[in-house]
C-alpha cells in the first residue's frame, strides 16, 4: 500500500478497511484476544403502570465467568433505562454516550426525555457502524406519551413490542413470556413474571447466571 493512501482518507465516513484485515487474519488462524461479553438474558415488559426491565448479572470472557455481579441495566435518563447484551464494552460505551446526549438535549429543550429520542440516537449510531458495535439492547421507559418498550439489534434495526427478550438466554425467557404474558399486569405480577423469565434464562443457558436485577419504571419514578 503506498504511503499517500495511508495518510489521507479518501472520503468522509468511517473506514472499514481494518475490519477486512481482521477477517483475513482470522481466516489464517490468527485470532484476536477474546473480549468480555455478557452472555446474558435481558428482558422487558410493559405492564399497567409502566415498564419493567430485568437482567441476569453474569459477564463471560470466552468460557470463564469474569464478573459474577455486573450491572446490565444502564441508566439513560431518570425515566428511561436500557439493558444491554453483547460485548460489555460496546453496550457500556453506547449507553453512556447516548445518556450524555440525552442530558444535553434535556438542558437544550427544558423537557423530560422521550424514549423515542433515545431510540433514534441509538439506532443511528449502531447503523453507522454496520453491526461492528456489538450491542443488542432492550430500551424501556415512560414519558409524556406513555410507556414504551423497544429492542435494538446490532445492525440498527428496531422493534416495538409489549414484551421483549434479548441475549443468549432470550429463547428460554421468550418461552416464559409467550405462555404467561397478558396485558394489564399489575406491579407484583409483572415483577414475578420478569424474574421467572430471567431465571429460565439462568437455568437453561450457560452464558447467563448469578443474580437477577429488576428495574421498574413508572410515571412516578424508577427503582
Amino acid at each position: 500500500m503506498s504511503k499517500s493512501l495511508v495518510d489521507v482518507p479518501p472520503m468522509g465516513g468511517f473506514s472499514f478497511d481494518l475490519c477486512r484485515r481482521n477477517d483475513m487474519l482470522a481466516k489464517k488462524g490468527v485470532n484476536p484476544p477474546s473480549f468480555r461479553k455478557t452472555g446474558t438474558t435481558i428482558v422487558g415488559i410493559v405492564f399497567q403502570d409502566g415498564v419493567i426491565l430485568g437482567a441476569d448479572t453474569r459477564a463471560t470472557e470466552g468460557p470463564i465467568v469474569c464478573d459474577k455481579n455486573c450491572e446490565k441495566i444502564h441508566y439513560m435518563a431518570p425515566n428511561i433505562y436500557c439493558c444491554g447484551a453483547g460485548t460489555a464494552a460496546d453496550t457500556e460505551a453506547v449507553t453512556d454516550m447516548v445518556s450524555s446526549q440525552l442530558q444535553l438535549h434535556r438542558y437544550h429543550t427544558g423537557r423530560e426525555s422521550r424514549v423515542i429520542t433515545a431510540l433514534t440516537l441509538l439506532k443511528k449510531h449502531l447503523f453507522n457502524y454496520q453491526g461492528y458495535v456489538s450491542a443488542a439492547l432492550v430500551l424501556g421507559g415512560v414519558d409524556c406519551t406513555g410507556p414504551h418498550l423497544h429492542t435494538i439489534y446490532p445492525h440498527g434495526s428496531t422493534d416495538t413490542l409489549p414484551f421483549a427478550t434479548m441475549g443468549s438466554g432470550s429463547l428460554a425467557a421468550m418461552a416464559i413470556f409467550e405462555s404467561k404474558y397478558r396485558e394489564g399486569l399489575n406491579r407484583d405480577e409483572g415483577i414475578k413474571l420478569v424474574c421467572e423469565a430471567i431465571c429460565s434464562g439462568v437455568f437453561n443457558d450457560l452464558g447467563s447466571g448469578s443474580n437477577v436485577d429488576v428495574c421498574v419504571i413508572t410515571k412516578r419514578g424508577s427503582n
Partner: protein
Amino acid sequence: MGLKAPHSMGTTIIGVTYNGGVVLGADSRTSTGMYIANRASDKITQLTDNVYICRSGSAANSQIVSDHVRYFLHQHTTQLGQPATVKVAANLVRLISYNNKNMLETGLIVGGWDKYEGGKIYAIPLGGTIIEQPFAIGGSGSSYLYGFFDQAWKEKMTKDEAEQLVGKAVSLAMARDGASGGVVRTVIINSDGVIRNFYPGDGLPLWHEELESHNSLLDILNASGPEPMNI
C-alpha cells in the same frame, strides 16, 4: 443458532391497485437466522399521509431508508405547499436505493394515492430499479405467488375484491414460505384516506393439508389463570 445473524425480514409483501386506490399487504415475521425475533412486526410504514411503503430484506437497512425518505418527503411537502405525489416518493426511495446499492439489501414497494394520478404502485427491488406496475409482489414469499397473480389478478377490481385478493395471497405465501408468517396486515389508501386492517393468523383460511388450530394445550396449562395473550 444464528442469533448473531442480521435481523432480516423473510417476508411476503404485496401492493395492488384497484379502481380508486391501492391496497398494500404484508406478513409480520422478522427473523434473525432461524429464530423469529418479532412475530408481529409492522412492515408497512408511513412515508406521508397518503403514501406508504412495504419493506423487505434487511430490517435495519429498510428502516433507515424509510426514515431518510420520510425526512426528505416532509421537507419536499413543506417546500411544495401540497401533498407529495406517489411518483416523487417512489423516486426518492429509488435514488437512495440505487446510489447505495453496494451497501443496501432491501426490496421495497411504494404505494399511495394522489390527486393527479390516483392510486399507484411502484416496485423498487434490490439494485434500485423503479417499475410502475398495476400490482407488485416482493420478499422471499413472493416466489410462490407469481402464478397465483397471473391467474387471479384482473383490472378494475373493487376495494373489497382487492383486499380479499391481497389477504388470500399473503396467507398462501405464509403457508409455503418458512420465512413468512404471523398475522396479515393490510393498508387501503384512497381519496378518503387510509384504513389499516389486521387479520390474526388463526382467522385465515386453511389451505391444503393445514389443520385447524386448537388452543387446547394452552388452556390446560392455564386452567385457573387468565387467557394467554393472543396475537
